[in-house]
């Protein structure tokens, strides 16, 4: 915001309240109410206003208090933002960022707890980013704001409370990450685990457990759901010959399904085992804590899937 006066933030409670999750803390004081705008609770309205401002040369950052609320504005994200550059034959670009917490939260029931990565990942014209660490969040958000196209920036509510080590490089004012490039968080040779957002942490924990049992897992932090870094994924699979995909969202037509297709298309001959897909249960999120835990992937699920991929040679029918 200090580099470009065209950048402004709008959304519910981003100003005086300092953000529902305190993500915009201090911004109102620093940039004033003209650039940090508290909106009424009208997602369709203010997302559309953001898109209009982007048509006209500003660079809006639109916050959804949670991405669940983006459903009230999805028409503007997809129809007004994602398709305009194409419909106008490149005359109207839409440099806008839609950001906010995404994914399973804790104890908030079905309407407040789901992952939108595959929803937005399915739409041409959008870029979809999923930061995991502080470094990711900083580097990718800057890239998103500078990008000339609409970016859906999916943060994770439960990661807001987590701390990450930050390098001096990441703190440098010139630090920025490329959109569309995955990061190998941990190198390994026996099995590839792909994950994004909070699940990267789970995959790293699973990799530690697996290491104790002699399995060397390579963990890929996707960072970008769309565009998807197919070459990093395929190169890794060609090395390890085994793949486990991890996501919090629903399994059907999910991010794992797309990764699996990419690997089947490009590296089929390299696979030594069927691809294992870990995803959320195929149900709306239940409220009860015990059911909720069953509905989202756990570290043990990843460990089990990696072992299945490593040890079994004959594919089983349903993985019960």
């Amino acid at each position: 915001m200090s580099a470009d006066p065209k950048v402004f933030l709008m959304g519910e409670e981003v100003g005086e309240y300092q953000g529902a999750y305190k993500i915009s803390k201090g911004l109102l004081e620093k940039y004033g109410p003209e650039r940090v705008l508290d909106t009424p609770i009208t997602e369709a309205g203010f997302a559309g206003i953001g898109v209009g401002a982007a048509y006209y040369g500003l660079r809006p950052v639109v916050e959804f208090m949670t991405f669940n609320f983006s459903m009230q504005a999805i028409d503007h994200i997809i129809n007004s933002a994602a398709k305009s550059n194409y419909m106008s034959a490149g005359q109207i670009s839409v440099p806008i960022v839609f950001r906010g917490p995404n994914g399973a939260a804790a104890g908030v029931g079905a309407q407040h707890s789901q992952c939108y990565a595959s929803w937005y990942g399915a739409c041409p014209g959008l870029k979809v980013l999923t930061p995991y660490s502080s470094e990711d969040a900083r580097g990718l958000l800057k890239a998103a704001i500078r990008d000339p196209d609409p970016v859906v920036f999916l943060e994770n509510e439960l990661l807001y409370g987590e701390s990450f080590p930050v390098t001096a490089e990441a703190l440098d004012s010139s630090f920025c990450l490329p959109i569309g490039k995955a990061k190998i968080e941990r190198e390994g040779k026996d099995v590839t685990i792909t994950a994004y957002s909070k699940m990267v942490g789970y995959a790293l924990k699973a990799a530690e457990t697996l290491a104790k049992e002699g399995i060397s897992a390579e963990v890929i932090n996707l960072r970008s759901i769309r565009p998807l870094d197919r070459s990093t994924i395929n190169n890794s699979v060609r090395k390890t010959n085994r793949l486990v995909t991890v996501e919090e969202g629903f399994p059907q037509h999910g991010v794992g399904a797309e990764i699996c297709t990419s690997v089947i298309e490009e590296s089929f001959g390299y696979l030594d085992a069927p691809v294992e897909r870990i995803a959320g249960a195929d149900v709306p999120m239940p409220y009860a804590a015990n059911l909720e835990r069953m509905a989202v992937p756990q570290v043990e699920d990843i460990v089990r899937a990696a072992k299945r991929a490593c040890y079994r040679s004959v594919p089983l029918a349903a993985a019960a």
Partner: protein
Amino acid sequence: MSFTATKFAPSPLPLNSTIPRSNDKPLSFSFDHFKPHPSSSFLGSTRTLLRFGALARPHARTRSSSPVSAVLLQQTSNLLVTKEEGLELYEDMILGRFFEDKCAEMYYRGKMFGFVHLYNGQEAVSTGFIKLLKKEDSVVSTYRDHVHALSKGVPSRQVMSELFGKATGCCRGQGGSMHMFSKEHNLLGGFAFIGEGIPVATGAAFTNKYKREVLNQADADHVTLAFFGDGTCNNGQFFECLNMAALWKLPIVFVVENNLWAIGMSHLRATSDPQIYKKGPAFGMPGVHVDGMDVLKVREVAKEAIQRARRGEGPTLVECETYRFRGHSLADPDELRDPAEKEHYAGRDPIAALKKYLFENNLANEQELKAIEKKIDEVLEDAVEFADNSPLPPRSQLLENVFADPKGFGIGPDGSYRCEDPKFTQGTAHV
């Protein structure tokens, strides 16, 4: 042949003028027996308006030429409630208040989790409206739904158990704090997104009209109440449904619980014209403003609005000016509301106000009210004990209720429906 610009220029319409139409009839929106009372001591948000200064048109509310009736009760010698009614209202409000206090206690003890939005301070609205309903009438609520559920008759045990995430809850632990449903009590849900509940409520009202006019059920006279807050009144779904409800004369009452704050967003910072009740006449329905801290005033307005809906005369918009005594949710640090404002409304506690009325009119004595409070204490102790001792939802429940027909899970590898696999019903299937 050339076209001249002037030839095709549209004739300009004068702004702010109404074009008379042949079928124009003057619309009357006042509930006849409610007369505006210009010297009312209740100023509520008008006072706040004056304090903030910027958006002032404070005289609008009491202008008698306004088609909107600013409903304020006349002082009459007649009692507004019988002794029985008074005690029933008191009991329901105490139940709402004590239940929510218990929730806060249980939340801090880790018995309930997630977002818990409490209703303290707004009891006059829930009690004033819902206690007038028949069991067949419907209520559609928001994420702040515990007390609406209780007023509608859902037992405390079931609501508490739902909050504990137990199998004995009104939604077997699958819904949670923001999603209370009870088909038996025609509680059509707590909706967690702003504005979502309004179309659903309008649909419930539509169903009644359809039953009467298409299915020839002449006795269908059910009313739906849609509860929502001031923040929602800036959302498109609100306006869309006011239009359709008025257009089709649906039996619904739109009940705005204007507690002046949407989390940390003051109503006055969010709304160009903060007098929400004025939006009713814009759509051709009465808009009524009432002191939402006075259960008897709410009840009088509610009575007429509900009867109007039941008579088939269409919807009403009622703005109840109220206040929440706690933060938006138990996670809200509540730093933006002025302590003086909180104190002002604390002094207008709707329960204390009813108590005073009952005493002053010799409708109840201290002992009777104490007995009610004791009874509710016991009800809630029992509810907590019941919830605590209830079983967690079994694993098998995870895959139940996704579809009304579980064949929706599709066909498994052996050619039979997945839901027929024993592993499916045990909840161990991988789907």
